[in-house]
C-alpha cells in the first residue's frame, strides 16, 4: 500500500472542514462558550432553561461540521412534522369535534384506533365518542387518520419527547390523554389553521355544533374533557 497524493489531499479536506467549523463558531459568537450552553460568555457548564434552547437551522449555507447539541440545542420543528395523533376540542365551548364516525379507525393501516360511540339513555346514537383509544406503540405515525377525518377532529401532534418506562398502562391513550384544545393546535400549526380549507371546514362544523351539543346534553351527559368517563377495562 502506498500513501500518495490521494491520501494527502484527503487529509487536507478533513483539515479544511475542521478549521471551517471553528471559523463558523467564531463568526456566530461561540468562540468562548459552549454552543448548547447558557446565555453568558464562558457558560461552559450551564444548560439553557427548558423552552429557551437555541434553534439551529441547517440550510444550504451551513459549513464545517454540523452537529446539534440536543437537548440544549434543537432543530426547528416543521409545521407538518407528525408524531402521534391528538383529538381536538374547541376552546369556545369545550366541544369535542369528533363525531365517532369511525373513518379514522377504518383508514388506520396498523389498526390501532378503536372507539366507543356515545349513546343516549334511550339507546339512540349520539355523534360523540364515549371513549377513544389509540395504541401509541402500534401507531406508525403515518398521518392517514388526520388526513381523512371529515370533521377536522384528529390531528397529528409534534411532541416527540415521549420516553417512558412502561408500556401497557401509559401507551394506550384514551380520550382523556388524546384531547388537546384548538388553541394548542392553532399554535403548533399556524399555517394550516389559517388556511382557507381549514377555515371553511371550521365554519361548516360550527353550524352543526349547536345541534350536536343539544343532542348530547339531551342524552344526559356533558361534553368536553371532564365528561368523558375514565375507562380502565381495556388497560
Amino acid at each position, binding site marked *: 500500500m502506498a500513501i500518495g497524493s490521494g491520501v494527502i489531499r484527503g487529509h487536507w479536506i478533513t483539515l479544511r472542514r475542521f478549521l471551517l467549523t471553528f471559523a463558523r463558531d467564531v463568526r456566530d459568537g461561540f468562540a468562548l462558550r459552549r454552543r448548547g450552553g447558557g446565555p453568558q460568555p464562558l457558560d461552559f457548564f450551564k444548560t439553557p432553561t427548558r423552552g429557551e434552547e437555541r434553534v439551529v437551522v441547517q*440550510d444550504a449555507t*451551513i459549513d464545517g*461540521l454540523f452537529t446539534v447539541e440536543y437537548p440544549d440545542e434543537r432543530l426547528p420543528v416543521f409545521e407538518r412534522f407528525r408524531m402521534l395523533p391528538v383529538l381536538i376540542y374547541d376552546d369556545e365551548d369545550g366541544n369535542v369535534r369528533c363525531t365517532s364516525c369511525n*373513518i379514522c379507525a377504518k383508514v388506520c*393501516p396498523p389498526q390501532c384506533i378503536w372507539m366507543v360511540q356515545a349513546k343516549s339513555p334511550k339507546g339512540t346514537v349520539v355523534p360523540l365518542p364515549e371513549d377513544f383509544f389509540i395504541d401509541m406503540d402500534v401507531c406508525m*405515525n403515518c398521518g*392517514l387518520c388526520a388526513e381523512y377525518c371529515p370533521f377536522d377532529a384528529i390531528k*397529528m401532534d409534534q411532541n416527540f419527547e415521549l420516553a417512558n418506562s412502561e408500556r401497557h398502562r401509559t401507551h394506550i391513550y384514551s380520550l382523556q390523554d388524546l384531547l388537546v384544545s384548538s388553541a394548542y393546535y392553532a399554535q403548533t400549526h399556524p399555517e394550516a389553521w389559517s388556511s382557507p380549507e381549514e377555515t371553511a371546514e371550521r365554519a361548516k362544523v360550527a353550524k352543526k355544533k349547536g345541534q350536536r351539543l343539544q343532542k348530547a346534553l339531551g342524552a344526559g351527559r356533558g361534553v368536553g374533557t371532564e365528561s368523558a368517563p375514565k375507562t380502565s377495562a381495556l388497560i
Partner: protein
Amino acid sequence: MVSMGPQHPSTHGVFRMNVRVDGETIVGLKPVMGYLHRNHEKIGERNTFLMNMPFTDRLDYLTSMGNNFGYALAVEQLMGDEAKPPERAEYIRVIMAELTRIASHMWSIGFLLNDLGAFFTPALYAIEERELILDLFEWASGSRMMCNYFRFGGVAADLPPGWLDRCRAIVENRLDKKIDELDEYLSGNEILLDRARGVGVLSTEDAINFSTSGPVLRGSNVPYDLRRAAPYGIYDRFEFAVAVGNHGDVYDRYYVRLMEMRESVRILKQAVRGIPEGPILAGKKTYQIKVPAGEAYGRVENPKGELGYYLVSDGSAAAYRYHVRSPSFINLTALERMCLGRTIADVVGILGSLDIVLGEVDR
C-alpha cells in the same frame, strides 16, 4: 465453514453468511436470509390500497419516497386515466425521487467506506448532505424517513411556502460542490483504491444472469436504467446520462453512485426550474379508492435498483395478490460470485458495495 455476521446491528436475525474458507480465501458463500417477521406482502393483501402506502415506506427505509413512487405507479396503472397526476405533482414526484437517490447514495458511499475501515469521517461528510435533504422531506411530508407522501393520482400535500427556495439553494449552489469534494476526498485515495479496485468483480454476463439492477448492474458495464429504458412519470423530459463502470468491481460500483448523484443534481436543476403551479392531486381526496380488477406491474429505478410492485386486483378494496420485487434481495444473490477467491477481509467491503437494506431483503 464459518458463520459470518451479522456485522451490522440492523442485520441481526435477518442476514448472515455461511462462508467456506480455505485459510483466508473464500471458496464458498451462502447468504442466509432470516426473518424480520414483517410480512409486508401478506399485510398488503389485507390492507386497502391506500393503507398500504405507509407500509411501503418501510421496505427500504432509506428511500421511502422512491418506494411510494413505485407503488403509486402500480395502482395508477390499474386505475387508468382517472388517476393521472397533474403536472405539478409529476414534477414534485421527480424532485422527491431524485433527492432520495442522492440521500441514499450518500449514505451508501459513506458506509461503504465505513465497511472498508474508514471509521467514520467519510460517513459523516456524506450524512451532512443527506440531513439537508431529509429536512426538505420533513418539511414537505411531515417525516424524515417514513414520508408517506405519494397518493394515487398525485401527492398528499403541496410544497409548503419557501420549500422550493431552499431546495433550489441546495440543488443549485451546494450539492455539486459537495459531491466534488467527496470525489476529491475519496476517489484518488490510494488506500481506497487498494481495497476496492479489482475486488468483488462481477462480469457483465453474470450481472445480467443474476438479474441484478441499479448501480450493481451498471457498475458491470450494462447501461440499463429504467428512467431511460422504460421511462415513467415525466422522466423522458429530462436530460441526464446513465453512468456505467467498466470492471464491475467495488470501486466501479462506488464510482457509478458518485456519477449518478451528479446526474440526479442535473435532473433536479431542470425540475426545480420547470415546476409549474397547479393542483397536486387528480380528482377528489378520498380514502375510498376504487381500483378496477386487473393486474399491473409498476416499477421504478430506485437508488438500489429496480423496485417493482406486482398487483392483482379483483375489484375489491384490497389487493388480491401483492408482490414486491426488491433490488436489495435480488442483488444479494450475486454475492457469492463476487466473493469467490477473495479473502475474508474483502467480504464486508463487497457486501457494502451492494448497498442492501434489510427491510427489503425480508419482507
